[in-house]
């Protein structure tokens, strides 16, 4: 039973290897590194249906090889791999691979997810995940040069002007302190991306303040009061429990 299963896996894997990537094909290639065949199939079906091309590996070693030979537009990496720690795979990939990596992991492992994000993963999803959510994350991650360079960012009734250091809600200026503005601008520039507590604290307050999560709580609460329509039901500044914040500019 065991043998036949792994043989079957190998066969499927092999067929993926041979599949040629024609230069004419404009679809983006996504590499899936996950040891569970069911998850790989699910991802393949979902992604192919949404105009992505997929290549697959069921272990970390093959994953790195495939990444090197195909240079995919994005990698979906499962943290629980049979041969190596997913974090090590991520580290190896990040030595040269600059395209986005999205982490797929089992639930209840916030520490692990934070480590992965701090080591260069762009986003994460926990199993079980909604495919709609996955596609949204992929779109955000692969969006070219995000909104970093935009001087004026608009999200519904909220406008952020980076040159003038001003934010408007319904065309009216929102009174923000400089720290509040920096925080808002940082999150907005990375629209759709999860930023860890540590990362935000480092960016806004500096290296010595990465443990001072109370700053972040206070300022996020304050910002919500100023920019959200209903601060108790935030739609812009989304909490990623135990991990960080995500700006959702829908």
């Amino acid at each position: 039973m065991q043998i036949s299963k792994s043989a079957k896996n190998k066969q499927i894997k092999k067929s993926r290897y041979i599949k040629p990537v024609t230069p004419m094909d404009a679809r983006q290639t996504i590499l899936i590194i996950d040891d569970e065949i069911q998850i790989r199939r699910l991802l393949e079906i979902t992604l192919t249906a949404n105009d992505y091309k997929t290549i697959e590996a069921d272990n970390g070693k093959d994953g790195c090889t495939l990444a090197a030979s195909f240079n995919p537009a994005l990698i979906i990496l499962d943290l629980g791999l049979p041969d190596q720690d997913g974090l090590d795979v991520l580290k190896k990939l990040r030595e040269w691979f600059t395209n986005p990596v999205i982490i797929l992991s089992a639930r209840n492992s916030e520490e692990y997810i934070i480590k992965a994000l701090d080591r260069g993963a762009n986003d994460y999803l926990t199993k079980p995940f909604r495919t709609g959510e996955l596609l949204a994350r992929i779109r955000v991650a692969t969006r070219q040069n995000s909104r970093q360079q935009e001087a004026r960012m608009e999200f519904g009734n909220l406008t952020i002007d980076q040159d003038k250091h001003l934010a408007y809600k319904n065309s009216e200026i929102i009174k923000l302190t400089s720290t509040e503005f920096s925080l808002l601008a940082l999150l907005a520039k990375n629209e759709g991306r999860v930023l860890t507590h540590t990362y935000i604290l480092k960016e806004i307050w500096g290296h010595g303040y990465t443990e001072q999560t109370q700053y972040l709580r206070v300022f996020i609460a304050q910002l919500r009061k100023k920019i959200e329509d209903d601060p108790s039901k935030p739609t812009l500044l989304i909490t990623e429990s135990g991990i960080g914040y995500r700006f959702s500019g829908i």
Partner: protein
Amino acid sequence: MKLQYFKQSLLKQFIISNLSVIFVALICYISVDFIGYRSVALLLLATVSILAIFFSLYPVLMAATMSALIWDYFFIPPHFTFYVSKSEDILLLMMYFVIALINGIFTSRVRQFEKLERQKEERHNTIKLYKTLFDSLSHELRTPIATIVGATDNLMQKESNISNVDKLELIGQISTSAFRLNRLIDNLLNMQRLESGMLKIKPDWCEISELINSPLNWLEKELLTHNMQIEIQEEFPIVKLDAGLIEQALFNVLHNETLYTPPDSTISVQVNYKNNCINIVISDNGKGFTDEDLTMLFTKFYRSGTKVAGGTGLGLSIVKGFLEAHGGTIKVENNIPHGAKFSIKIPTETLKMDDYLSFSNANFKVS
């Protein structure tokens, strides 16, 4: 378990039992002129008997032997020799030995027996608990699996005349069942964390509305049929606790509310802060609980008489565990005029937001 008990304290037991025999002997030696050497034997015997109540067999036997020798050497004339001159005293000494030994052995036997009985009872209770767990688990696991298998079978039938509406409903059932299984696994994992003593809370600063809102978001779909009222005290400070655990606890209580109150009921969440404690009151205007429910509700595997699908009797006991890990409490009572009312209290450190804001703004001007 028993072996460990011996290993850990056997040496200590030997030392203590010998010391107490010597101590009693010393006191007797001082007062032997008043009490006579024969009553010394009784006092020593009493000491050995008391030791036998608390200690295991070997230290007691040792104490018995030692006390007999001490009595012989120091008290029975002629003194400072093991030689006994009177035949009467020889008899007494022999009797002393026999009684001390029987005393020691008998008491330790009784204790061993008691211990075995206790272990048996514990084992019995554990088996009963596990039986309950596995009964409810297998049922709770099989129901969603049966739904998934049935629904997929229907959907995979080539020539079926299932309407599109029904197809969508079947797909919806598969989805619901999957999430139910997931929730069950979450609860099992949480239970295991509590049971194994591996649960370490990691308190961090968090904001109260975030804390209340995440479980409400997770329950978005379930709460559509209910009216929610949320009241959070103004000017709430930021608090320090393990947000993950508290959110899970609130989720479990609220999820229970959605399961056990009829549609269109009102669930209200009131949060205030007093005397370094967060008070969260979650109440509803449903049917409330029976007296048995009220006393048993947080007991592991307890399920209310009005069983609703999707429960294992774990949810609320996890709530209690998570809150207790924070030094907090949860109480349940019936609401007036009807319904249930859960009162949660969590002690916590706080920071007043306004003070903090002006402070940190002044100190951390950033470009």
